[in-house]
């Protein structure tokens, strides 16, 4: 899962990025609105955390321009909690809204919800036959038993489960799950997928030769 954080307060940007990374997200952080918009247009993110008061371009403007092209879910952060601001944010296409000072756990929960809703999953649990992905607890269960996966293995399963039925390319996985360059570590994903198949069941992840992976 890859998140873009646009926040002009450097220390807050640092803290948010660190907290999100620790939650297993791949994080891109920028301090300016125009840079944020550029990043959001160039890359595919699973969600964007967007501050309203930004230099360069303010949050509203970024959101408005982004929505002309993309449907990436956006969580707005603002120091103003006046009702018109909230209404404006939601009307402009924000998926959720948080007022500063916010609680970090709440931000994380809302972010998960935003991503889930965007993937068309209403609940925080994705069932894949006998295998269940618990997005909230970041855990995979098989026949009700917890299966111990590494953070990267879980991230791959989560991403594929979120985009169930769709072909996910290796590049996509590298960028959005590992935050790493696809060229340098070309066989790392194969290793992880092999491990996952061994821990869960062999036919959970289907390999499409030369294209990528898919959970049917």
């Amino acid at each position, binding site marked *: 899962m890859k998140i873009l954080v646009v926040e*002009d307060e450097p220390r807050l940007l640092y803290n948010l990025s660190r907290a999100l990374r620790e939650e297993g997200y791949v994080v891109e952080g920028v301090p300016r609105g125009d840079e944020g918009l550029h990043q959001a247009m160039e890359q595919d993110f699973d969600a964007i955390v967007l501050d309203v008061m930004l230099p360069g371009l303010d949050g509203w403007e970024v959101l408005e321009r982004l929505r002309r092209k993309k449907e990436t879910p956006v969580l707005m952060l603002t120091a103003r909690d006046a009702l018109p601001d909230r209404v404006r944010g939601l009307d402009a296409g924000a998926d959720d809204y948080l007022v500063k000072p916010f609680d970090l756990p709440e931000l994380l929960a809302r972010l998960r919800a935003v991503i889930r809703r965007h993937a068309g999953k209403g609940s925080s649990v994705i069932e894949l036959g006998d295998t269940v992905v618990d997005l909230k607890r970041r855990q995979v269960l098989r026949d009700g038993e917890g299966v111990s996966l590494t953070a990267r293995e879980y991230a791959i399963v989560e991403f594929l489960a979120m985009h169930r039925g769709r072909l996910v390319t290796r590049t996509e996985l590298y960028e959005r799950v590992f935050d790493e360059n696809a060229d340098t570590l070309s066989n790392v994903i194969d290793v992880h997928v092999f491990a996952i198949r061994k821990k869960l069941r062999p036919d959970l992840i289907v390999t499409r030769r030369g294209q990528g992976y898919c959970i049917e």
Partner: protein
Amino acid sequence: MKWTDSIRGRLLLWLGLLLAAVLSGFGMAAYQLQRTQLFAGMDEELAELVSQLSQEARGTPPSGGREGREPGFGGGGPGERMPRDREGPDRDGFGGFDEPFGPPGPPPDFEDRSPDDRELKISSELMKRLGDGQEAGFAVWRRGGTLRGSNLIPVPNYPSRAGHDTLVRFRHRGHWREAYHFTEIGECVLVGRDGSEEIAELHRAGIRLGLAGVGVLAIGLGGGWWLATRSLQPIDEMSRTARRISEGRLSERVPVGSPDSELGRLATVMNTTFDRLESAFDRQRQFTADASHELRTPLTLMISEAQTVLSRDRAAADYREAVEQCLEAAVRMRDLTASLLQLARIEGELGEASTFELRACVRTEIEALGPRIESSGVRVDTDLLEVVCLGDAIRAGRVVANLLGNAVHHTPPGGRVVLSMERDDVFVVLVVEDTGSGIAAEDLPHIFERFYRADKVRSRSEGRFGLGLAICKAAMEADGGSIMVSSKPGSGTRFEVRWKVDEAEC
């Protein structure tokens, strides 16, 4: 609310009283006029009758006219007869004139022959006009008051003689109007007429007048009500609008109507007040929003810092860093609240009548900023005068410190800040000039606004809140001075601060 408490009620009450007074005045005058006219006609008729009767009562034969009418002319009987002859046929009914009085005599004899025994003879024509005693009649008294003849029952009182003239006088007796006069020989001749009909007519006229008056009063009050309602309507509208505004809908305005009318002027004044009120409210709201935003940023930082670091076990260095960050944010909040408090205090303050010496004040502030100036690598030059100014020393110190601090902050190392003074009889100007980065033209009009920062990201991370110049401006306004700025981006900024010179010092 009693109806007399409302302006409309009181207006109507006064209008009613005034109308009633005017109408009753007019009514009474009209009534009096009518009455006078009515009696004037009657009196004229009675006067004519009384004079004719007195002529005839004098018993003057046709020749007697000499005695009665033109006593001064003396004889000339035959000459006089001629016109009387013409009246002859009428008099026949009465058998002509009383002959014994025929011989003419001089007027003095006339009184001696006071004809007590004379019979009263009245021509039938006059008799007809005098009436039969029912609705009109006459009475003649001899000198002294004995009745000589009358067809009136009862006989009216003998009139009292006021003077010794022979003027015709009038009097009322019940419904009767009577005219009387005393002849030269002391007889009293009275002619009366029943005036009941005239009086009734007068009463009717009075009732008509009264009804008309009541009608006019009603119309006047109705019109007054309408006028009052109409002219008070804008006031009602104003009070409704003012109430809505006081309930918080500050953008509403009183309808002005025609701006030159009294209410239009009032409405304009009220609207001006509401404009000021609204902009003051807006400023306050904006300030509160900005202040809370500024306070929320470090708060957000502290909370996220603490929550991140506490979310799992970490190394001691991580905790230390988090605590340091929290401390930094807390210090920022402390500085901000201090600045806010300072601003709020200065804005609420009124310039007290105190004085301070500007040069000493500037020197103190330069000294206080010494370490910062040294570390910045900026040279600070001064060219100062000793001047006692009107104002508060602490406020002036803040202004100098803020301007000097800004100048040093925005001037790159190796640059120069100059503080100089100019004065005339009224003002002293402190000029703070730097060779720094300058202020962009689009920022220049806003720099005295609270929380305005030309470069938000950089200033916020440097702990600058954009309150310094707002504090300067508020301080100068409190002391009756002024502050001005001019700047060339890239080459420097010049602030001019103006205080009033203490006149006692001159």
